[in-house]
């Protein structure tokens, strides 16, 4: 962004509709929508399409609202990091108070509407997720511990649980397997990003593992978490949400993911700088595919089940 644009937006003080939409972190919202949808459809209770649509919509809006509140709180560090400098608040397009107002309003609206459309437990779970992401992760952990990503990753892991509860109205063990998958996937995903974004987190003073424990330690952590994730992901194949399709997809993805983590572990900074962190970037892109395809496989098992093809049954 040029200085001219900053001056222009500051003078006019008028944000476009797209700037407000960007506050809701649309890319994160796609992950929320997809995992919540899988949670909803994998549940054993059929849901009316209209209620299912409304449930996913309000879960997505709740996720977006927490994104807006996160941008309001983190405006100071977003200004410093290259990756986040273009966000609406640091770019001067939206005022922090506007983001706060939009975040609180949409949070309340999404929780109430989800509870009315489905059940109270789903609404309460969405409220807890927003609280966890904004207060526990953004306000507390992110700036105080290098384990920020590990514990904060739980916030992104709740949507399939909310989707499941929206459909069934009860809590059971299956959606928590999906929760565990996202939870264990988040650290290697973000640490790979932290490796190739290099000085971003250092400059912002965020205690990312790369800053507090160094890059070689981060590489070791990626490998350890990937091994644990692979065990969990493959083990899920033999549970109620898994099956042969899931197992086949998971074996391939985990072989690729483990090989990527192993290569990251074997490299040092000098090697990484030669090819501009090509291995770390590839691992990050693979991580997106990894999660999407695991959830697609869970969905496939659920869709095939009524025809006697899903699961091990």
């Amino acid at each position, binding site marked *: 962004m040029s200085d001219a644009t900053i001056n222009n937006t500051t003078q006019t003080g*008028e*944000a476009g509709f797209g700037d407000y939409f960007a506050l809701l972190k649309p890319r994160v919202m796609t992950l929320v929508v997809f995992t919540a949808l899988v949670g909803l459809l994998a549940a054993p209770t059929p849901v*009316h399409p*209209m*209620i299912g*649509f*409304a449930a996913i*919509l309000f879960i997505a809006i709740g996720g977006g609202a927490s994104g807006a509140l996160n941008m309001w709180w983190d405006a100071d560090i977003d200004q410093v990091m290259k990756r986040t400098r273009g966000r609406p608040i640091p770019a001067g397009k939206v005022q922090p108070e506007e983001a706060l107002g939009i975040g609180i309003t949409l949070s309340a609206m999404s929780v109430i509407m989800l509870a009315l459309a489905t059940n109270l437990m789903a609404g309460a779970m969405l409220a807890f997720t927003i609280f966890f992401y904004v207060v526990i992760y953004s306000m507390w952990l992110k700036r105080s511990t290098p384990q920020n990503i590990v514990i904060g990753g739980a916030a992104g892991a709740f949507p399939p649980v909310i989707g499941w509860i929206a459909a069934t109205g009860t809590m059971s063990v299956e959606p928590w397997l999906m929760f565990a998958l996202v939870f264990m996937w988040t650290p290697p995903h973000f640490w790979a990003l932290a490796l190739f974004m290099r000085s971003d987190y250092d400059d912002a003073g965020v205690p990312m593992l790369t800053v507090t424990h160094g890059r070689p330690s981060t590489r070791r952590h990626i490998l350890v978490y990937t091994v644990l994730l692979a065990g969990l992901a493959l083990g899920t194949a033999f549970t109620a949400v898994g099956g042969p399709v899931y197992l086949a997809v998971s074996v391939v993805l985990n072989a690729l993911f483990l090989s990527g983590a192993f290569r990251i572990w074997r490299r040092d900074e000098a090697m990484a700088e030669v090819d501009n962190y090509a291995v770390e970037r590839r691992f990050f892109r693979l991580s997106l595919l990894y999660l999407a395809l695991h959830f697609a496989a869970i969905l496939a098992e659920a869709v095939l089940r009524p025809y006697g093809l899903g699961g091990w049954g």
Partner: protein
Amino acid sequence: MSLKVTHEIHDRRFGRNVGLALVLVGFIAVVFGLTVVKVTSGGFEPPRAPVQEADG
């Protein structure tokens, strides 16, 4: 000079208003759709009073 000259800010404001209008219309449609589904599926029916049998 005409007073009707539109500045870029007017276009942006118009886009924002149209966006907000569409969001509100969408919200109304979702609430209406939910209401129809809940009512037709019996979700809003009050508990039935016990039926009194006619005396003899």
